């Protein structure tokens, strides 16, 4: 598999404060990568840099295109960013119109638009809000609508910047599973919540602009000391797993509660 994103010795600062200094990272096509770190680690800055929001960084290459003024629009066509803050930039009167807005702009056939819309609506279970005013939605619902508007465009890369915090666990699980199933999608999931990295193949721990740990997710999850040091809370099941493993009561990380109970009392 080839690298779809290559960052080579990127530096970036706000005023006098360096967020990244000689930062390098490669991401393979169609992989699912999580980047986890505490507040101020550079996560959101990285997300914005990837879509050229903070500067047009020629240290970044995406789909073999070096980021520059000329390439930026082509790059943005295939990369979607879902931000952490509630999206209040809706343009349409109803949720349905909002979601298909991008596709309509591309001049697609109505029947194709309808088909894509139905698929997304079914996945995100948002049929009950389709005819409501997007501004009357709750924070979590707004997030689902912005996600739907992005997914419907069939991006090749999706960058999720701590966007699912207000979405309940079951819906979140469904979304991650769906994203993972997509054969031609590279997912970069940026978060400070360990539970959000479980679905990814590879996890990177970021702190103060540096990569502390990078590896297969299950291996990285064992780094409880690193998580503690940088102030990332261990979710209950992971914490329990690692401690029970230390006591020799289980021999691997078990994140599912039923599985754990059955493993302990076989």
């Amino acid at each position: 598999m080839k690298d779809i994103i290559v960052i080579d010795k990127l530096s970036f600062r706000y005023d006098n404060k360096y967020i990244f200094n000689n930062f390098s990272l490669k991401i393979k096509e169609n992989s699912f990568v999580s980047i986890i770190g505490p507040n101020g680690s550079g996560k959101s800055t990285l997300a914005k840099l990837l879509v050229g929001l903070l500067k047009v960084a020629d240290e970044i290459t995406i789909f073999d295109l070096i980021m520059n003024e000329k390439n930026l629009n082509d790059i943005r066509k295939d990369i979607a960013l879902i931000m952490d803050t509630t999206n209040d930039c809706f343009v349409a009167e109803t949720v349905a119109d909002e979601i298909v807005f991008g596709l309509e702009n591309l001049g697609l056939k109505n029947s194709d638009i309808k088909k894509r819309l139905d698929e997304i609506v079914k996945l995100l279970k948002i049929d009950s809000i389709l005819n409501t005013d997007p501004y009357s939605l709750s924070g979590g619902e707004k997030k689902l609508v912005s996600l739907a508007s992005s997914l419907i465009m069939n991006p090749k890369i999706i960058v999720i910047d701590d966007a699912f915090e207000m979405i309940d666990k079951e819906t979140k699980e469904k979304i991650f599973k769906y994203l993972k199933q997509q054969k031609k999608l590279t997912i970069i999931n940026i978060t400070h919540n360990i539970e959000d990295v479980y679905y990814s193949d590879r996890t990177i721990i970021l702190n103060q602009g540096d990569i502390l740990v990078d590896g297969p997710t299950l291996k990285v999850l064992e780094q409880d000391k690193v998580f503690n040091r940088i102030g990332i809370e261990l979710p209950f099941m992971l914490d329990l797993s690692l401690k029970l493993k230390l006591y020799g009561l289980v021999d691997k990380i078990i994140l599912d509660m039923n599985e754990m109970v059955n493993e302990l009392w076989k």
Partner: protein
Amino acid sequence: MEIKIENLSYYYNEKTSLQKKALDDINITIEKNIITGIIGKYGSGKTTLAELMNALMIPSKGNVKIGKYVLDKQINNKDIKEIRKKVGLVMQFPEEQFFNQTVLEEISFALKNFNYKVDKLYKQVIDSLKMVGLDETYTERNPYKLSSGEKRLIAIASVLVFNPQVIIFDEPTIGLDYKKKKQIIAIIKMLKDKYHKTIIIITHDVDLLYAITDQIIVLEQGKVIYQGLTSKVFSSQTIVFPQIIQFINLVKKEKGIDLEKTNNIKDLIKDVYRHV
């Protein structure tokens, strides 16, 4: 200050084709000087309820009594203003609503808006900064250039500055990591214990609820489906538990083993060790 909510309903886009029911005949009593947690899935009406308690919106039906003021369709502008002074609302991602160049201007904005005397203004700003654990050196700083945790604290200080008796926090820990979350929890506790504020926390963070609330209200599709003391919720079946309690309950259900109820993972593991 006590809050009493009677038969409260709220519709967005009332009497249009886009009408949407957000709250449906709600009755709640919130006694003074306690911490109440309001929990529910997205779309359950949590934020709408917060905005009604702060008189940002007018009820479609029913009323909200805040001390001696009654918020209903008949309320006048003077009373609305009074309610907003008595009830401070720390919104979701409050730091996104900064619009001043210095922390001093940002925090004192509400005071100026409420026509407080200007000579006391600086002292009040410093006092509110101290309440959130920051010092005077912050006054001249640019709020946009602070860290995310500091921004949240400044946003809280800008509500504390006008000394509201009731403070509503809408998702106070959202977007913050563990350390910052703990800091916010400590501040909220102090506001209750030391300054005797009545506090309402709207959240979907179950651990936060169990850590600091005295009472929990559960909303579902605009209705109250549960209201009770946090200490009693442990034995009820209606709401989401912290995972540690879920685990203990599951062991009981599946294996018939009684593990001791605890909030501490080390104690739990010792107990598991005894029973395996």
